[in-house]
């Protein structure tokens, strides 16, 4: 075997130049890939409807289950945002809207969108569907655990939704759930609502841990022959790093949930100092609310990247495929993803500059936060350099990628405002913050999700989505969302604080009434235009143009399955063998404008491929 090793380590170019000079016997050598280390995976094939579609162990079905559940919660979140916007733009229009309801909607909207929608969609949905396909595995490594993971998530969603119907309603503590107000009577839903929220989050963490272990180990230990880490599509790198972050960040959330549940139910004083509420001395003492904020943001900041990194990865792949050009600086992209992920554990308290923590922390966290800006900026450069001298298909997928770049750059730059401590002080807790994070981790990842749906829909269903409807959907969504959040920054400049049920006679805000009305109308339109998307999906499921194999002429393994849509086990008789990275588009000397990952070097002898 040691000489087999030598073979593998021999540079491929050296051999291919040899073959080009005519030695015919070595064609097999340049195609050499190390033999399989592991035997074929033992899979459980479902037979009945229940084992095939409900308690299913196939990662693809689990991915779709995650996707649909997450989209359902997303629609709930969308409706809540409409109600909030109506109140802000046109107070007194919604008859049942009280301050209690408003704050409950704010809270549930935030929590649903961040955790139950985006996280679950990217990692549970795209992760489950794409990881085994893209790394060339038959399935996730622990299919049973994967199934339990989804059902845990499902129960978590049920518990969350149940909190709408308990006495007092869902919690209205803001999505950050800061104590003491989260569990004191002054906030809506501080009874059963907050308890159910904490239980639901804990269940989510448990379920996610099960799924996350699967994603990590499938990527680390179950890749196909020839698939080195540096040949993985950036989608997988993004999902991988995000999952790793989740495995290390969710513990902090779990711990803070447990401690707050105890504070609520057993009246312990982890986060509760001595408190006098409504003239009454409460039975608490000695705790520290700032501790909760630290724990929460130790989870919360990586959480931002849990949402952002898969988006970075997916958008890189989409841009490369539809610009028909290799992604620029692949290595740097990978290291940027990993670096951002690692750094994200050292920046959490930039959410707490005005929280009353030890003021000296400001220096540390401002510095680490702005360091993160460097790899992030490099990623943006690489995306646009990829577009340079490319051959760009202006289809819906590409439009969403471009929309992502615009919104992400905008939101990223406002992030530099908020990361730099002295700049943050006047802006924090104002609408500037809302505009910033909706732009950067709301709209930007959503653009990617929608682009990804248009991109992979043909793979999942075997039919194309309608391009015409897709373009309408894109322009409504992009222009609408941009005109919601771009002007909103200026509300923050005025100093309008966030989480205000109504502004009434405040001198600052009278000038903002018009803008609030405009934003509300835009929000209603953007929300409504999502129904174009849903209509497109539903009709295309049956009436869409059949896609055939590899309609986008992509290189990565998920398009190279024996059947489209792929069946359980993914790759038919034999697992694919990988010879190159997935970005060999328009290689000089090659006949076609793409070379799939499985194409052996001997078939594209004239192509001047760079070694990967």
């Amino acid at each position, binding site marked *: 075997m040691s000489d087999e090793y030598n073979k593998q380590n021999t540079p491929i170019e050296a051999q291919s130049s040899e073959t080009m000079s005519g030695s015919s016997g070595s064609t097999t050598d340049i195609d050499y890939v190390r033999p399989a280390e592991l035997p074929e995976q033992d899979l459980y094939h479902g037979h009945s409807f229940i084992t095939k579609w409900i308690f299913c162990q196939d990662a693809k079905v689990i991915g779709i289950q995650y996707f649909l559940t997450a989209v359902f919660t997303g629609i709930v979140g969308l409706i809540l945002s409409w109600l909030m916007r109506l109140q802000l733009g046109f107070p007194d229009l919604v008859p049942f809207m009280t*301050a*209690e309801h408003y*704050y409950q909607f704010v809270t549930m909207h935030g929590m649903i969108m961040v955790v139950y929608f985006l996280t679950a969609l990217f990692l549970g949905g795209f992760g489950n569907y794409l990881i085994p396909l893209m790394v060339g595995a038959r399935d996730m490594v622990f299919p049973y655990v994967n199934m339990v993971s989804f059902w845990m998530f499902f129960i978590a969603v049920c518990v969350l939704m149940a909190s709408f119907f308990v006495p007092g309603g869902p919690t209205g503590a*803001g999505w950050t759930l*800061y104590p*003491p*107000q989260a569990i*004191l009577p*002054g906030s809506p839903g501080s009874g059963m609502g907050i308890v159910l929220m904490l239980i639901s989050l804990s269940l989510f963490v448990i379920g996610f841990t099960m799924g996350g272990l699967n994603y990590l180990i499938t990527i680390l230990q179950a890749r196909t022959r020839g698939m080195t880490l540096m040949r993985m599509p950036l989608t997988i790198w993004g999902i991988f790093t995000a999952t790793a972050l989740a495995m290390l960040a969710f513990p902090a959330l779990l711990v803070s949930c447990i401690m707050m549940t105890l504070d609520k139910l057993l009246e312990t004083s982890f986060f509760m*100092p*001595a408190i*006098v509420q409504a003239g009454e001395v409460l039975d608490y003492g000695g705790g*520290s609310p700032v501790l909760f904020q630290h724990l929460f943001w130790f989870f919360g900041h990586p959480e931002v990247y849990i949402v952002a990194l898969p988006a970075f990865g997916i958008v890189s792949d989409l841009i490369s495929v539809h610009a028909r050009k*290799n*992604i620029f*600086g*692949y290595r*740097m992209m990978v290291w940027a993803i990993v670096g951002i992920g690692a750094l994200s554990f050292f920046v959490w308290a930039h959410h707490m500059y*005005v*929280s*009353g923590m030890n003021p*000296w922390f400001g*220096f540390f966290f*401002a510095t680490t936060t*702005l360091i993160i*800006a460097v790899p992030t*900026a*490099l990623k943006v450069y690489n995306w646009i350099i990829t*577009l*340079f*001298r*490319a*051959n*760009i298909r*202006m289809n819906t997928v590409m439009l969403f990628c471009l929309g992502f*770049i*615009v919104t992400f*750059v*905008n939101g990223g*730059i406002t992030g*530099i*405002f908020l990361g*730099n*401590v002295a700049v943050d*002080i*006047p802006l*924090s807790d104002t609408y500037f913050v809302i505009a910033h994070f909706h732009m950067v981790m709301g709209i930007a990842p959503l653009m990617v999700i929608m682009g990804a749906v248009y991109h992979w829909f043909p793979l999942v269903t075997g039919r194309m989505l309608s391009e015409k409807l897709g373009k309408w959907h894109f322009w409504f969504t992009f*222009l609408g969302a*941009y005109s919601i959040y771009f*002007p909103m920054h200026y509300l923050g*400049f005025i*100093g309008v604080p966030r*989480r*205000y*049920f109504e502004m009434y006679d*405040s001198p600052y805000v009278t000038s903002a009434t018009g803008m609030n009305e405009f934003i509300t109308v835009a929000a209603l339109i953007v929300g409504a235009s999502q129904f174009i998307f849903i209509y497109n999906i539903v009709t295309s499921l049956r009436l869409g143009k059949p896609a055939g194999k590899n309609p986008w002429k992509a290189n990565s393994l998920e398009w190279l399955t024996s059947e489209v849509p792929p069946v359980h086990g993914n790759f038919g008789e034999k697992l694919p063998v990988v010879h190159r990275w997935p*970005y060999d*588009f*328009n*290689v000089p000397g090659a006949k076609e404008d793409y070379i799939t990952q499985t194409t052996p070097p001997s078939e594209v002898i004239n192509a001047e491929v760079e070694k990967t």
Partner: protein
Amino acid sequence: MHPGFIFLAVIVGSVLFHIFTPWWWTDIASNWGAMDDTINLTFWIGGGVFILVCLFMVYCILKFSYKEGRKVEYKPEDHKLEKILTIATTIGVIALLAPGLIVYNNYINVPKNALHVEVMAWQWGWQYRLPGEDGKLGTAQVIKISDENPFGINLDDPYGKDDILIQSDELHLKTNRPVKILLKSIDVLHNFYVPQFRSKMDAIPGIVTYYWFEPNKVGEYEVLCAEYCGVGHYAMRATVIVDSDENYENWINEQETFSSLIAKQNNKLEITRIAKNNN
């Protein structure tokens, strides 16, 4: 129409919106002009980068949209370019960070001559405590709060006796005198925020937080609570009035001290006792 033009319109529209916007900073009324400067610096550098990146993107999609057989560049890596971009970005980031840290250093180091003002927040309102002639605030604890002792001042602390108590949401400050705001909450998180002063800080139960500023414009300002604190959050307002020296002296001389409050209450108790005895 080529989508590139719509993206171009979005960028131009953003710039125009900025030029013609009626919504911008409130006029500053404190010493934190440096904060506005750092924001403007970030705004111009950041805005410049945003426009450049987006224009380059628009150029690319206009120039290189799909044409069968177009010659495409195959260049996976360009170390020189990547290095230049990394260094340029790093320099830009340092240029933004350094002034920010200098301003922040001023923000957390309070001048020695600052007047201490305790702001006590509760659901949902404000009250204030100023030091008396000794220039020092007495220690206080939340659990000692009662009708007779609205600030929970420790009775055995001599510094507390002459503290000036303001049980209204209207606070007066002297112009051109630095104030150190000591924030205290008796129930949940709050935040004492006056947009014109630019500075803000949360009030947290269990500890005392602080920040400082120097009001430099006479006038009346609205205080907003900037940290979500329950149902009444949006209605939790107060007023800060920045006075000239003379008006400030007049105002402060009218306020009640802790010892006079105690005396008054003792009086009241005495009267009720006598009244009871007479019955």
